């Protein structure tokens, strides 16, 4: 046989609660307990409100550049539902706030971070996560290494790492996928394919039909799902987590979603994006369909919605107050944070807040008079 088929693959797409709030019982039944769906909805709503407030804070000069999560809350919540706070790890990018809160990160950390304070990245000890990653596509390697440490310690802890469609173009994405598969680490690659990387559409980002097929290159189990459907997301994540916990190695999940806002507050998406596209996606908003799901099952009503709105306002207000109430960091922290024990030369820069040498060294002579401190 001169030609024979030596490899075959196919990729499935999962949708359970679709954009019309139609629910597929065959896969969805019992997947998420009612009270957890309610809780998830509330979490998404609170995050949405945080987003809106953060946007306003930025506009009024009380915060720096901020990337809204708006529209992508289901991917964050749906995946985090399968994780165990305090044991499993999250290695995030910056568009999955809800997942971080579910893992135990206090909400004000996120605001503090975008307010330009490193203490927003000072992850509390009981929270298993790395700081938000500004350099795109380079943090997933850490999820391979973190997973490897869990693996050789023989725990059943897993690591979920989040990243966008754009991030999959970086070389480090490729290396992370390869290291995780070769070392069979318990790492779950959660791709939030929101169709855009700032102004670059998916069609210019990649030539493949799906993001999910990128995992085939590594012999890694892979699946695509409706990323605005917490059920579909949770379904895929459950499978991946189960596989990872039981020594089955890494998995890839493509969550098809959409960035309803601008890339960040520094961006104006109207420059490059058809408003009709945004409109179409507004109809697929994860909050709307989850609410419909709950309402259809009498788990939700307008009163509850009003209460939730109030509660969200209150929570976010407090969070803003907490973040804004934190004093400006001490200048010395710039230096002190560099090493466990800072070198003499860094200490000297800290103490003098200077780099010029005159008057700094006892043995240095020659300065006429005391012009030093003016």
């Amino acid at each position, binding site marked *: 046989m001169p030609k024979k088929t030596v490899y075959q693959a196919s990729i499935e797409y999962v949708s359970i609660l679709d954009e019309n709030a139609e629910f597929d019982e065959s896969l969805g039944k019992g997947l998420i307990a009612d009270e957890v769906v309610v809780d998830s909805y509330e979490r998404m709503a609170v995050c949405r409100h945080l987003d809106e407030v953060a946007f306003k804070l930025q506009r009024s000069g009380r915060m*720096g550049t901020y990337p809204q999560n708006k529209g992508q809350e289901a991917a964050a919540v749906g995946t985090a539902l399968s994780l165990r706070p305090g044991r499993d790890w999250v290695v995030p990018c910056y568009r999955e706030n809800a997942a971080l809160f579910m893992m135990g990160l206090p909400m004000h950390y996120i605001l503090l971070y975008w307010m330009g304070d490193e203490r927003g990245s000072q992850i509390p000890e009981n929270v298993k996560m790395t700081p938000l990653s500004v350099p*795109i596509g380079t943090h997933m390697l850490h999820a391979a290494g973190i997973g490897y440490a869990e693996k050789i310690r023989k725990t059943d802890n897993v690591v979920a790492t989040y990243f966008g469609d754009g991030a999959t173009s970086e*070389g480090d994405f490729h290396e992370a996928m390869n290291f995780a598969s070769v070392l069979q680490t318990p790492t779950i690659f959660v791709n939030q394919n929101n169709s855009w990387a*700032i102004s*670059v559409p998916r069609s210019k980002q990649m030539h493949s039909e799906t993001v999910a097929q990128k995992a085939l290159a590594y012999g890694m189990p892979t699946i695509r799902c409706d990323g605005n459907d917490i059920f579909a997301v949770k379904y895929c994540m459950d499978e991946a987590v189960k596989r990872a916990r039981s020594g089955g190695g890494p998995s890839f999940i493509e969550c098809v979603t959409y960035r309803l806002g601008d890339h960040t507050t520094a961006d104006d998406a109207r420059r490059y994006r058809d408003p009709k596209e945004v409109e179409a996606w507004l109809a697929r908003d994860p909050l709307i369909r989850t609410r419909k799901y709950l309402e259809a099952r009498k788990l939700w009503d307008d009163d509850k919605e009003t209460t939730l709105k109030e509660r969200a306002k209150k929570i976010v207000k407090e969070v803003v107050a907490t973040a804004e109430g934190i004093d400006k*960091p001490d200048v010395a922290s710039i*230096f002190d944070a560099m090493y466990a024990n800072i070198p003499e030369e*860094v200490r000297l820069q800290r103490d003098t807040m200077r*780099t010029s040498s005159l008057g700094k060294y006892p043995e240095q002579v020659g300065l006429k008079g005391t012009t030093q401190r003016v």
Partner: protein
Amino acid sequence: MATLNLVQAINLALQQEMAKDERVIVLGEDVGPNGGVFRVTEGLHAQFGDERVIDTPLAESGIIGTAIGMAMNGLRPVPEIQFDGFLGPAYDQIVNHAARSRSRSRGAVTVPLTIRVPVGGGIHAPELHSDSPEAIYAHSPGIKVVMPTTPYDAKGLLTSAIRDPDPVIFFEPKRVYRSFREEVPEDEYTIPIGEAKVVSEGDDLTVVTWGASLFQCIEALDNAPDDVSIELIDLRTTYPIDMDTIAASVEKTGRCVIVHEAAMTCGLGAEISSRVQERCFLHLEAPVQRVTGFDTLMPYYKLENEYLVDAKRVGMAIRETLAY
């Protein structure tokens, strides 16, 4: 003559070179319809189309590596790296390929490439959006490194860079992008790479700087006592270094303060300081001083101003050096 800011001057140089030479290609993240995150490439996509203004995938090594291939095959690519900190993933392609190709092939395979990168702090941006990596590339033989600060210089130097037969990194001090305007000729002109500019003449002390710190130096000079006369040099090109201009000045003044935003240790200030004392040893009346960024990371923006060199720190070093 139009009055332009730095963004506009760079945009004009790009537009003119593209119009004049169809080998010039602009590529990078968001440089197309969006016009770049700082709008430096605004209008180019509309004028020159998809083939010559390419929105690339999000991959800096890919951008530079692809541009290297284009340059090897007769084009004149002008890639943009979106922020200083994102030069990191492209470091290997720049240093191990772009910089080495001419020497590796003894002139047979060359890489006429101009890498544009906004640099430096002061705009309240997130982490990795405020670095000043000029010394890294000055230590990597085979590339030229340019950092103009004024719109006039930027237009002339970018034109030179694009026409240069070797790879050039073109650093744009982003804090200055929209901070001031000056008259910029609409006609083409070039400013030679490797020539510093004496911004103001003086006899008592020489200040050497480049990038956005130029303005802190000017402020410090304005605040200096009337009876001291300070010579201010804007380096403009950080490799090769115009030592003739610096040495001539220090031989006259006998005192030198170097100011830059990057971390002190192994910064370009160290190189200039070493060369000054090597060449002008017997002229020196005081040790050459460096006023630079600290040997720490650029902090997140709440403490950004505390990190950045300011006129006060420059002024103190000037006074102390004069008093030595």
